[in-house]
């Protein structure tokens, strides 16, 4: 069944591609397209960061019975642009007796890792820059580089607070990466593939979170918790811990270098939500019911990137909700939570998922007629 998709960008992209192929040699066409994709991704990165900073401040305000930014523009909507300009023109402070080389290199690890993960996310139909066969593995891999930037930043700042923050961050990220990876693997068992586009395609009529019912739900919750912890936010923000460590690993950074950390923090929040959306909630796939063609057509009128950003926004809201509800955990409680609760549950859960898949207890196996697989 082909549905009308008037607002999709696939046609535009195909036209652009044809245009470049026609007027340029294949080599230069691919170079130009690569550059365009790069610019698009970096621009999207910055725009999403700005939007997220605004949304976060607004929602934070609402949770605290305040209004949040409300002065610049309507409802304070250009507040974060003003903040960006301020951070760009700020002085970069050079620190005496700090390890200069590492100090300047560290922010690039953080921002590089989050950009690399950002590039592989399927934003919509045909809106995926790279589609690796081992996409999930790639996401886990590149997001593990970020902690190096935090560690090096903490050490090279030559500051006790930064050092403590970096150590905490190292312990926390190494621990929680394990849970995040395991919960993603649970879904890989269910979907039978690691390619993000195939994972999205396989959730056409039923999302993975429903398809794998109990084990998938447990994996989803664990992924949200560990992803939240990996981004050093919410109740897990010990590396920064304003109250104890002033700002943790980025105490000594200023100007655009601090901006990198700030940007990466917000984008990591987005990336975690985006991965959860793609892997558990059907990615950019609109809600469809097998057999209801009229309904499906209406759903397809809403373009796929709107679906993607909508689902992601819901998860980001959840993340903010959690952040402003719970108090910060102590470091030993934090590590206990991972090693004594999340990891054992996760290991048990992945076995449960294997049993579910092998025994044919997934929804698609139990009710193939509903999903047009019979």
């Amino acid at each position, binding site marked *: 069944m082909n549905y009308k998709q008037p607002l999709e960008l696939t046609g535009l992209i195909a036209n652009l591609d044809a245009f470049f192929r026609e007027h340029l040699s294949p080599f230069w066409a691919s170079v130009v397209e690569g550059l365009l994709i790069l610019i698009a991704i970096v621009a999207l990165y910055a725009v999403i960061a700005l939007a997220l900073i605004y949304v976060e401040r607004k*929602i934070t*305000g*609402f*949770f*605290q*019975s*305040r*209004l949040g930014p*409300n002065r610049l523009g309507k409802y304070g909507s250009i507040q974060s642009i003003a903040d960006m300009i301020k951070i760009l023109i700020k002085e970069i402070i050079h620190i005496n007796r700090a390890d200069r080389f590492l100090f300047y290199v560290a922010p690039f690890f953080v921002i590089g890792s989050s950009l690399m993960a950002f590039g592989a996310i399927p934003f919509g139909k045909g809106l995926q820059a790279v589609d690796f066969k081992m996409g999930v593995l790639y996401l886990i891999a590149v997001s593990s580089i970020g902690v190096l930037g935090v560690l090096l930043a903490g050490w090279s700042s030559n500051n006790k607070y930064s050092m403590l923050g970096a150590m905490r961050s190292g312990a926390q990220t190494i621990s929680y990466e394990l849970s995040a990876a395991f919960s993603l693997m649970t879904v890989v068992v269910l979907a039978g593939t690691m390619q993000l586009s195939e994972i999205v395609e396989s959730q056409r009529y039923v999302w993975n979170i429903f398809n794998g019912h109990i084990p998938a739900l447990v994996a989803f919750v664990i992924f949200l918790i560990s992803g939240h912890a990996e981004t050093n936010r919410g109740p897990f923000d010990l590396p920064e811990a304003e109250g104890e460590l002033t700002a943790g690993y980025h105490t000594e950074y200023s100007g655009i270098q601090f901006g990198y950390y700030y940007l990466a923090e917000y984008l990591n929040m987005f990336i975690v939500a985006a991965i959860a959306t793609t892997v558990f909630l059907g990615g950019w796939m609109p809600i469809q019911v097998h057999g209801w063609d009229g309904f499906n057509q209406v759903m397809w009128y809403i373009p796929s990137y709107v679906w993607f950003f909508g689902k992601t926004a819901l998860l980001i809201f959840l993340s903010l*909700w*959690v952040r*402003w*509800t*719970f108090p910060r955990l102590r470091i030993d409680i934090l590590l206990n939570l991972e090693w004594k*609760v999340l990891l054992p*549950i996760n290991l048990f859960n992945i076995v449960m998922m294997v049993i579910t898949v092998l025994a044919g207890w997934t929804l698609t196996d139990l009710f193939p007629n509903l999903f047009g697989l019979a």
Partner: protein
Amino acid sequence: MKALIKYITDIFVAIKNLLKGMGVTWKQFWAKKVTMEYPENRDTLVISDRWRSELTMPHDENNEHACTACGICMMNCPNGTISVTSSTVETEDGKKKRVLDAYTWNQGSCTFCNLCVLTCPSKAIAFTNDFEGAVFNKEKLIYRLNQPGSKLREKKKTQ
């Protein structure tokens, strides 16, 4: 076995408690916001009467105040923000009397402790809650409280 059961029940108890906490913040999210948007709500703004921001010397309709220029407020002020200058004049019936020339108050170094108002024997000064006292330079923060041409209110001889 007992430990295992406790482990599992603990997880569910924890989930229940966390959800309870999230319910509280969910209600807060939709609750009425308490932020006051200041310049817009100037007409409806309510400032508490106990808020002290500007020292005034109330004058009545005859341009008379109650300050006898005794200088107690000046002596009591911890920051020396008040200075009272007075002169002595001779009244009609030959008595010498102290008259207030200038009562200046420097808002810039005032801590709004209220000691001057509390110790004033004739209740000549009072704090108002008019908080919009911002000016463009320091010199403008020095106010003269007695109006030009004002004089001391005569005590009515009731007895």
